[in-house]
């Protein structure tokens, strides 16, 4: 009887044992004590947004900064302006732009108002065809006139403007990301909105091409963050007269590292330009997970085109950085966003700041865990209270599609500041 009863009951016997703990690779940090007031721009999000770039800029020169955002889903460029009663008013600057990746605000024609250069990706998803463009929105009174400065290129991810050949007008550095093939270009300004393209590097996957005087010789150099077949940081030393010397500044042999962004900043305030590089892109996977090698590196400029690389964060899925003195103690702190943290866990960080102890040793503080999938961040004084605020953009193409956000702000409050 007993064996029979056991045999009958066997398949239905419940499992009551204690499982071993699950692995947890999510990046979670102590909550910040700095007060922030989170806010979402625009109407409530119903559809997963794709905000590719945000920045804080006084576009119309009225001393009230606006938020400028590239909406890669609806193919438009938006600005958000704060009204006197604190409401944000959305304004569409331009539409029908075939996936704008990045906007650069500059007076390209030297007529006293700010124009906008837009890097046109042409396609959100991998595409090696010639769908990219360099677009200029020329400010003309209250309107913007659209001009194509360069077409017949692969996907364009970034454009930066500066006088690269020393002739007094503004030239452009262009990141032709492409997919399997791509280039780094500089465009020589020939006047009358004509630009001649020069190839600096043949490599797919250039994300950013910031300009800075890296060697302190008084002219602008170009830096390129290449992240596709290779994971490399290149410098193009301006040797004058439109000539550049190519220098490989750093490479990672781990080509899974996922370079995701690069900015210039004098992080240690020693008078030269350093680089901040985020790594954490996982877009090749349908479902993602933060990796231990993700995070942020500080490339400390030690002169003569050499850099000492310091890891300052291991934030999983880190995608963009901004530098500001967030706690008002006189040194530079770092704000980071994550696109690929472990979003199944509600507490995983999407926005953190790294408190600088004054010696470039950083403590992580978590500001937000939602919205998730943040790819772009900027800091600036949005409400003109003398304290830096934060704006970030969400790019939701990878599940889970919850805790969605488009353009979001975190206005700094007046609480616990140093």
């Amino acid at each position, binding site marked *: 009887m*007993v064996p029979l009863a056991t045999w009958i009951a066997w398949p239905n016997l419940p499992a009551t044992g204690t499982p071993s703990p699950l692995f947890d690779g999510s990046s979670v940090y102590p909550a910040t004590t700095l007060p922030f007031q989170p806010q979402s721009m625009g109407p409530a999000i119903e559809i997963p947004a794709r905000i590719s770039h945000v920045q804080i800029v006084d576009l119309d020169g009225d001393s009230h900064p606006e938020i400028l955002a590239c909406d890669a889903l609806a193919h438009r460029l938006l600005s958000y302006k704060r009204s006197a009663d604190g409401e944000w008013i959305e304004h569409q600057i331009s539409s029908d732009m075939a996936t704008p990746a990045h906007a650069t605000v500059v007076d390209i024609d030297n007529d006293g108002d700010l124009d906008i250069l837009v890097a046109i990706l042409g396609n959100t998803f991998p595409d090696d065809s*010639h769908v990219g463009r360099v677009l200029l929105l020329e400010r003309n009174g209250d309107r913007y006139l659209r001009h194509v400065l360069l077409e017949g290129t692969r996907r364009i991810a970034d454009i930066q403007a500066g006088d690269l050949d020393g002739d007094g007008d503004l030239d452009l550095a262009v990141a032709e990301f492409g997919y*399997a093939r791509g280039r780094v270009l500089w465009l020589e300004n020939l006047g009358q909105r004509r630009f001649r393209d020069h190839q600096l590097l043949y*490599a797919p996957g250039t994300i950013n091409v910031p300009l800075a005087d890296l060697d302190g010789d008084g002219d602008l150099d170009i830096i390129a963050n290449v992240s596709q*077949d290779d994971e490399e940081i290149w410098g193009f030393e301006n040797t004058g007269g439109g000539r550049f010397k190519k220098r490989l500044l750093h490479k990672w*042999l781990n080509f899974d590292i996922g370079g995701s962004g690069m900015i210039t900043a004098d992080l240690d305030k020693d008078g030269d330009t350093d680089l901040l590089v985020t790594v954490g892109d996982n877009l*090749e996977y349908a479902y993602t997970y933060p990796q231990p090698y993700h995070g942020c590196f500080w490339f400390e400029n030690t002169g003569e085109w050499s850099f000492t690389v310091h890891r300052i964060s291991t934030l999983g899925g880190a995608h963009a950085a901004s530098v500001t003195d967030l706690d008002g103690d006189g040194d530079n702190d770092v704000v980071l966003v994550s696109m690929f943290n472990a979003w199944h866990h509600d507490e995983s960080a999407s926005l953190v700041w790294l408190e600088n102890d004054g010696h470039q040793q950083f403590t992580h503080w978590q500001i937000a865990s939602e919205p998730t999938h943040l790819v772009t961040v900027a800091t600036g004084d949005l409400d003109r209270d003398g304290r830096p605020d934060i704006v970030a953009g969400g790019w939701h193409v990878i599940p*889970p599609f919850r805790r969605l956000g488009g353009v979001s702000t975190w206005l700094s409050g007046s609480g616990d500041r140093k």
Partner: protein
Amino acid sequence: MRRRRLILLTVLLGIDVVFFGWCILERTSRPAPPRPPAEGIVDSETARDFQRLWVLAENPGPADMLALGQAYAVYGFFPEADQCLERAIALRPEAAANWFWSGLVLNRLGQTARSTERLLEAARLDPDRVDECRYIAARNHLRDDSLAKAEDEVRQIGPDHLAGQYLLAYLMVHTDRSAEAMPILDRLIARFAQVHRLYQLRARAEELLGDDEAARRDRETAERVPESIATDAVADHLGEKSYEFGLERRIVAAGRLNTPGNLDALANELTTILSISYRPRIARLLASIELRRGRSDAAVTLLKQLIRRDGATSDTLIELGLAMDAAEQDLTQVLLVFQQALQYQLDPEICRLMSPFVKDSAANVDRLEALQKHAEGLQAFRENRLDQAVTLFEAAAPVAHQRQAESNFFLGECLWHLDRREAALEAYRRCLELRPHHGRAADRIGYVDQIEQVDRKGEG
């Protein structure tokens, strides 16, 4: 006698109770399979499949725990998948698949050392997996910045494994051993002549070796060969397996209904799938089915919703234009949609579709035809069909269309690569007449001048 029997029976019964009681306790003390926090993250169909697999895995047969682990893995629940696969290994350590999938999941969790250990065990158990396991193990080592271990691993990969051989050459080129990499790359290019990454890597090696001319030639070839190398092995495995579970499995099953007699049933099933979870590719497929069923208004609605939810692409806009045309909507609006598609991507198909709309002007017809030839020429160029590309660009280049300068430039490129240098130079010059700031055309002419100067010096 009867008492002795009773005692014996009692003892036997006691042994039974103790033994089977111990068995039951052992059985119930096993931990339940993990359940991920799926609510609100996965759709109802996938959640049901998880539950079905979970029930099977609670009393696991040999493959049940593996299946549950795979299902969790392909939907991104890697920690839960890890736990399932640990148990799958404990239940059936002789099964290579258990070790292999555990290795994949640990790779996704960033647990590189454990992942490598599992993969190498899988390779030991299943000789067919050796190269692939070693390749992923090498990538694990690179993630740990262990270059020597990575190279050791790839050196054991067979010569037929393209990604492995490419990685070996890549590591050499990037560690100042380009000369060592060159024979490997030459051999690979001889065998896989249509893979552009091989030319790009060889160009890098040549540049490092100081042979800029060879590097330039290889980069130009890389522009004209279409194939790539699959180097995301883990992503590929997860992607392939996803069709066996949850809503993805239902989508695959729906695909089998795609026969002429089954369009109504297929449309109903796709509508149901979309109501469970919005998938852009399903919306696109449903719109095409609705068009085939003569329900063009429904197709228009679906495509407009697709554009709102997933953004406009040239493909979607083409489909929308066709659906609007079939629904007999305002032709001006249809033309606008095609024009928008053309702005997003230069595609010969769009030019062809637009041609009925521009018949009122002969000049417009010529311009559109030239643009179509230009687009077809670009396709031929990218696939290294240079003779065809020349014919197409020759037809496009004389016509004043919006890409006329580019037509002349690419005509020059084709002729250049066909060694028709003089004709190529003419085409580059015509490009520069039309667009004086065309950098690549100017560079090419400058390059030719440079070569000629060198030749003259040589002759002198």
